């Protein structure tokens, strides 16, 4: 008769978790390296110069610049405030802030290596569309309510 599988001990569970973490290390080192590279070359001032081409174009630019940017989410609000002060529309700034925290082009290779190409492509495509839609709907709804 087949012997029932024993549940793992706490030590085995911990070792399995550590093993999982160690196996992800090359990917995490690569992503953090790319983020460090990006932050050394792309400044907030460079980003703010990209806007000012109309509502639709600014939403697209906000989404794309947010997606290629990386770092702590709080930084996106600091940059967002600067963009609003420079006259960039709320549509574009909200898209920028949202894309910053939901999309991450620098981590795409990592996502592909973990979840596979088709899941990553579909998820990021849906996230891109959702970001544009959420920014647009939030501004329009708040204008209606105001």
């Amino acid at each position, binding site marked *: 008769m087949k012997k029932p599988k024993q549940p*793992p001990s706490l030590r085995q569970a911990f070792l399995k978790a550590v093993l999982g973490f160690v196996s992800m290390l090359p990917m995490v080192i690569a992503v953090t390296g790319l983020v460090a590279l990006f932050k050394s070359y792309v400044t907030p001032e460079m980003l703010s110069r990209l806007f000012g081409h109309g509502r639709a174009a600014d939403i697209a630019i906000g989404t794309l610049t947010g997606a290629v940017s990386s770092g702590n989410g709080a930084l996106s609000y600091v940059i967002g405030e600067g963009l609003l002060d420079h006259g960039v529309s709320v549509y574009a700034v909200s898209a920028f802030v949202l894309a910053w925290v939901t999309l991450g082009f620098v*981590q795409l290779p990592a996502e592909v290596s973990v979840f596979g190409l088709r899941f990553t492509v579909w998820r990021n495509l849906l996230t891109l569309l959702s970001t544009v*839609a959420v920014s647009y709907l939030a501004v329009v709804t708040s204008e209606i309510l105001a």
Partner: protein
Amino acid sequence: MKQLQFKGLRFLFVVLLLFLGVLLFDAQKLPQMGAEFISIWAKILPIFALIILLTTLIHYFLKPKHIVKHLGEESGAVGVVYAVLGGILSHGPMYVWYGMLEEMREHGLKEGLIATFLYARAVKLPLLPFMIGLFGLTFTVLMNLYILLFALLQGKIIDRVIKKDILP
């Protein structure tokens, strides 16, 4: 015991090549890049400790049949609630959560819930004061409600295209 299989080795190789390029053509940037790299790791290391602890508890307490029941194909609304709450409460960069999600997926976590979890992470509780300061209270509430709505929609769409095998 699970075999050690490194993820992202080719990606790491490409990034190392980029660093080599910087070393050869713009070496004065390297100290700044090194400082940024260390600063990022100082921030994510405590999160990794938390993730190792969470993953240990998952391995110890949650059996695959539990994951299938609460977060698998038949999990229904309960699974969605867990994914949304997990997304809202999770901290740090998205990539630090990949390992845990991958292990849970191997035990039956459905892919739509991964998409829901990852998009619900856009609701950043510690950053809400920044958001209210920048956009105002009404806009912040609306935006977060729409984020949650689209997190659910993404999960549904991902599940549907996978079930119908629409994904290329």
